[in-house]
Structure formats: structure tokens, C-alpha cells
């Protein structure tokens, strides 16, 4: 029993210790600075391997980028023979008496010289150009920046612009006319004039007739009031 209690307590303590460890873990110092710095360089991937060993992956990536650019330049140069001669040292025909090994050595050394030259050019080009995208999502995100021209994407329409478009598509002439500032400003004046026209105050003859009618009504009223009260019914008189 005691052993079971001990195990139960021990288990609970261990679980609490694990959860406390997860809760109390501290973020590494400078995490905010690193994140902001990496966000300002969109083409730079920030992998855990880079953090653990910074120099070797960067060198590998730089070498990869330089190789790609070198191959591209070599490909373009190989398609232009005159330019090719200017860049590459001319490889003269070997004498027939020369050993094949010497020919191979010369070829290898010439190719190495070309490669070194290309690498130097490529390194310079790589330094001047934008950094190569490393990860696929980042490459996709930055592919637009490498395009020849890149207009900024249009901003979404504001609510007012959407309302305007709706009016234009609907084509209601009254709504279209209300877009005109002058028309809109004169609208209250027109409304006031319409109101005055509709509820026009009565003219003088109309007012004189109205006065006569009033007097007639007033004269009739006293006749009504002067009539004697009706005689009570015989049944209404209480009999003693």
C-alpha cells in the first residue's frame, strides 16, 4: 500500500515536473532579433543545421550557387565561339609524338584554368546578384523578384470603390446623377422647392371663403344650443 502510494505520488510528481519543464522553458536570448533579421532577408533560410554549424552549410550553398552560375556562363560562352577564344586559352593541337598522358594533363589543366576563371567570374557575379533562394518555399516566394519587371500587386478595392463599381454596373440614372457633386448639392434646394409647391399656402380668395364658412358654422352653432330640451317621457316621471 505504501509502495503503491509512493508510486502514485512519484508518478504525479514526475508528470508535474514534465509539464513544468514545458511551461518554464525559456526562449534563447536574442530570438526576436534573429527572427527580425531573417525576415528582412527573405532569401536566407534559417535552419537548425545552420545554427548548429553555421560556416559549412553557408560555404556549401555559396559553392553550389557559384557552380550553377559558372555552368550557365560557360554554357552561354560555349555558344559564342569568338568570345570563347577570347576567354579561354587556345588549345593547340598536340604533336603526334606527344604521349597521350601529356595531352590529357594539358587538357585537364586547361579545363581547370577555365573552371577557375569561371568560378572567379561566377563568384563576382554571385556577390553582385541577389542571393540564391535556398528552400523551395522561399524560392517560390522570391521568384517574382527575379523577373524582368515586377509591378506591385494592386491593392484591394476599398468599400467606397466597391460601391462606385456597383452603381456603375447597375446603371441607374438617378444614382449615376447623384455622383455629380453639383447635382447632389442642389438636391436639398430642389426638395425644398417641391415641398413648397406641393404644400402651397392658400391664396387670398380661398382664405376669404374659408372665413365665411367659419362664420356660418359659428352662426349655426347657437341655434342648436337654443333649442329647448326635449320633454321627459311620461314613464320617466316618478308616480307617487
Amino acid at each position, binding site marked *: 500500500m505504501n509502495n503503491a502510494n509512493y508510486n502514485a505520488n512519484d508518478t504525479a510528481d514526475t508528470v508535474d515536473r514534465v509539464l513544468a519543464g514545458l511551461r518554464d522553458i525559456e*526562449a534563447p536570448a536574442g530570438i526576436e532579433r534573429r527572427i527580425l533579421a531573417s525576415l528582412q532577408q527573405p532569401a536566407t533560410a534559417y535552419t537548425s543545421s545552420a545554427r548548429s554549424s553555421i560556416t559549412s552549410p553557408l560555404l556549401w550553398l555559396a559553392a553550389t550557387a557559384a557552380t550553377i552560375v559558372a555552368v550557365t556562363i560557360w554554357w552561354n560562352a560555349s555558344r559564342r565561339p569568338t568570345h570563347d577564344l577570347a576567354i579561354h586559352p587556345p588549345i593547340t593541337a598536340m604533336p603526334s609524338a606527344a604521349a597521350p598522358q601529356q595531352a590529357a594533363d594539358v587538357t585537364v589543366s586547361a579545363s581547370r584554368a577555365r573552371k577557375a576563371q569561371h568560378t572567379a567570374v561566377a563568384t563576382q557575379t554571385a556577390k553582385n546578384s541577389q542571393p540564391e533562394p535556398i528552400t523551395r518555399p522561399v524560392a517560390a*516566394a522570391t521568384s517574382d*523578384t527575379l523577373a524582368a519587371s515586377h509591378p506591385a500587386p494592386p491593392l484591394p478595392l476599398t468599400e467606397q470603390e466597391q460601391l462606385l463599381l456597383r452603381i456603375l454596373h447597375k446603371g441607374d440614372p438617378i444614382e449615376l446623377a447623384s455622383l455629380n457633386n453639383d447635382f447632389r448639392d442642389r438636391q436639398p434646394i430642389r426638395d425644398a422647392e417641391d415641398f413648397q409647391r406641393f404644400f402651397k399656402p392658400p391664396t387670398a380668395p380661398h382664405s376669404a371663403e374659408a372665413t365665411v364658412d367659419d362664420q356660418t358654422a359659428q352662426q349655426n352653432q347657437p341655434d342648436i344650443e337654443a333649442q329647448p330640451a326635449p320633454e321627459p317621457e311620461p314613464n320617466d316621471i316618478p308616480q307617487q
Partner: protein
Amino acid sequence: MTSIEGLSLPLSFTEGAKAEIDLAALVETHARLLFRVAHSVLRSSAEAEDVVQDAFVRVLEHRNRLNDIRDMRVWLTRIAWNLAIDRRRRIRPDQFDERFADDLAANSATPHEALHEAQRIRRVLREMERLPRAEHHILLLSAIEDLSTAEIATVLGKTESAVRALLFRARTRLRERLEKGGA
């Protein structure tokens, strides 16, 4: 896809400055919480920092919609959580647990006790991984006391009552399994 011309954001000057200021404020405010969220899943500082950076890259991609987001903290937590879960699938489950357990047990009195403690901690982590997924996730998120039950519910897409019930069930099941195996 949002594009970035060179090293600057494709916004007007004032909008760009405002967006950069907002992003810096977001990083300053939420980076450490997101790190703890990611670390609870991955148990590796390096992986967790990667996840936090990925989360803010997503924020950068959606910066035009930041004004539409009501609760930035929960939104960011959800992004970091999902990224951490995705990353967890790509690594071995206990790849980083050993080091985490050793670090936790390092404060024990003697090396012998530290060794035993580390073994117990690793066992707890293994049993936590074996819990049903919903219970496991809620147990991890609840360990981060910065998140309220409502926030956990929003991150996981559940109701608050479901979160409370699942948390109780997770703790009970974990304890039973550990006691059965003898921690």
C-alpha cells in the same frame, strides 16, 4: 503569392513603415509565447525557433489582412501550433526527448538520481505521446499557463467544456498508464 522586391516590402513608404513597425511589435510581443508553444510539441529549442520564424513568415505573407484579425495572439499561436505539429510528423517522435529529459533531470542531487529521473521523465513523455491525439494536444497546451481555456479551445477548434473534459481525461489516463507500468 506575396512577393518581396529585393529586401523591402512592396508597399508605399508609410504603409511599409507601418507594416514593419507592426511586425517588429508582433515579434517582440509574441515570439516567446510561440517558442514555448512550439517547444511543447518538439522539445527542441532549435526546432522551436525555426517554427517561430516560419510563423512570422506566414504573418508577412498575410500582412494585408492583419487588420481583419481580432485576436492576434490566438491567431499566431494557432499558426505556430500547426507548424509545430507538421514538423513533429517529419522527425522521430523521441528524437529530442532524451536531451529534454536529461536537461530536466540535471538538477537532481546525484548523478544516479538524475539518471533515474531522466528515465522517468522519458517514460512520461512516451506515455503522453501514446495518449489520444486530442488529449495529448490539450495536455501540452494546458502546460503553457499563458493560454486560457478559451484560447486553447480556439487554437484546437473545440469548446471550452470539451477542453476541460479532455484535460481531465488526459491527466487521469496518463496517471493510470504510468502507475500500471510502474513509474
